[in-house]
């Protein structure tokens, strides 16, 4: 049981990092942003490139996050904002287009073969109840908890959180009350893309590989998680990330399911949506 739990919780933490940004964006704009997963790949590639040039991995991670923030800011300014009036499906399809094009660009820039990212995170590690827990897994766990508590605190107790909730509830009224909506949107995009890049670096270290298509499965799983958590409900999203991570690990370990791990998330998603069409936690901080 224990190995599956450790694996599920650490992977769930990565899903939470990745899915939090698009969930907050959905709360604000009612659009789904798949291109967020491109930041995961971009962050991992910038990180691994700098690491191969001799820089410490955490510096590479920071640079990857910075690069992804720039990507997020450019996308929201020049693509999503002008498209908002076209309706949610147009934005979703455009973001899929961006994601596909960026993946191809990564393939051309960094070549299709996988790169290794051999990093040992100097954190306490060892065996718990006979299960080896590596430093990077400890880091993933710590970051998962930090993001969970951090977003709860930021959304509930800071000015950014208040403006996010106000804007999510009613963009026009928030604007009339003096909230700089464009700046809130830009801030949320920047934060979401930075977290995705961080998730990418951790993913790369955890599995010791960086490939151009490493964002594929996380991208669509991210959608499943956002929906499961109740669209636009950040706390629900984080909860759903851990639920999906655990469900995959446990089902995989114990039943050796006929379908691969990545399909389980979608089957669970479709089943849950048909029973609860508004997600697991439809009402949270804001009404979706």
């Amino acid at each position: 049981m224990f190995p599956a739990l450790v694996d599920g919780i650490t992977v769930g933490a990565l899903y939470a990092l990745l899915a939090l940004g698009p969930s907050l964006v959905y709360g604000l704009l009612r659009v789904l942003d798949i291109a967020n997963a491109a930041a995961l790949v971009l962050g991992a590639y910038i990180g691994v490139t700098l690491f191969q040039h001799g820089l410490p991995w955490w510096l590479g991670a920071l640079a990857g996050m910075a690069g992804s923030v720039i990507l997020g800011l450019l996308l929201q300014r020049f693509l999503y904002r002008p498209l908002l009036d076209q309706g949610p499906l147009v934005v979703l399809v455009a973001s899929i287009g961006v994601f596909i094009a960026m993946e191809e660009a990564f393939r051309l820039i960094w070549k299709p073969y996988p790169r290794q990212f051999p990093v040992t995170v100097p954190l306490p590690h060892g065996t718990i109840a006979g299960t080896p827990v590596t430093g990077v897994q400890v880091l993933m766990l710590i970051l998962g908890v930090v993001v969970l508590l951090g977003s709860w605190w930021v959304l509930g107790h800071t000015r950014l959180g208040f403006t996010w909730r106000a804007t999510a509830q009613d963009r026009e009224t928030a604007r009339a009350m003096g909230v700089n909506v464009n700046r809130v949107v830009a801030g949320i995009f920047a934060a979401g893309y930075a977290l995705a890049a961080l998730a990418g670096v951790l993913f790369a270290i955890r599995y010791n590989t960086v490939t151009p298509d490493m964002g594929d499965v996380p991208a669509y799983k991210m959608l499943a998680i956002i929906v499961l958590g109740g669209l636009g409900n950040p706390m629900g999203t984080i909860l759903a990330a851990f639920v999906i991570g655990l469900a995959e690990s446990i089902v995989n370990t114990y039943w050796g399911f006929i379908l691969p791990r990545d399909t389980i998330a979608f089957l669970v998603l479709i089943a849950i949506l048909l029973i609860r069409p508004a997600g697991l936690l439809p009402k949270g901080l804001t009404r979706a």
Partner: protein
Amino acid sequence: MSYLLVVATTVVIYAVLSVGLNIAVGYAGQPHLAQGAFLGIGAYMVAVFSTRYELSFWVSMLIAIAVTAASGLLLGVISLRLRDDFLAIVTIGVNFVVVAIFQYVPWFGGATGVYAIPLPSIGGQQFGNGEFLILGLVMLAIAVAVSGYLARSWLGLGLASLRDDELASASSGTPVAPFKITAFVVSAAIAGMAGALYAPFLSAVTPTSFGFTESIVMLAMVMFGGVGTIRGAILGAVVLGALPEIFRFVSDYRLLIFGGILVLVLRFQPQGIIGTDSAAAGWWSRFRRPGHSADDDGSGGGAGPYGAVGAAGGSLPGPVDAPGAGSAGE
């Protein structure tokens, strides 16, 4: 010459798929990102039944159409319960589930797929490249005729009204549930028909050739040309389908260019290149009737939640279907 025929047949198959997809996406306004999965179901049915059970191509094709139509029925029933983004995500998930079933269920041949699919024959004569193209064009004519008929029928009117405002449409008596389901079923059946031709045309099917990427390619074709119009779906299939073949260097960057074109079209010409309310349609109508703007063209569409609409309004004479019928006959 035979290479040209192969390219032309590929393009025609994509056109059939886009015209079919346009019924669910354009007419009914439903987010549908699983047309690639339905293509796969159709192709796999023909592959399995014509190799393992040695049924003739034509019988296998009927089975393929029936099975995809049934799958479309299932998706249609799901669509009644879910809206917009939720439905979009479920249709994305359908791709992954269907591909996984192809990959892991032995009946479908597992990861290697099904190969050595026999060529169809008609009157004792086996299909060559020319026959594939002709059958493809016949299928395209059928798809255009069906969707043109749908657009002008009560069903098309009902779909147009529920696309623009489902609540208002339902309260004025549109039977929303059966209409929506019909749109998904017809859309899927056309994909199944195209898939039936695709399998012997490729002579082998593998699970990974029918996934989310293919679905996106088809949606890109519909959106490139103009959502809600037959001419747009065909133009999108012709341009995006032929591009990687005409410019060989393009095929290395195929997805980069597809993604890029999709983003640029949506960003700067969201109604598609020749869709209703697009710049090109405006010029065309001014050219034909000087003094009238495109908005007076009687399409009654306007931008619904999923971009430009029209064509399904039914009141529009000639121009909606004429280019489509023209290229079908070529």
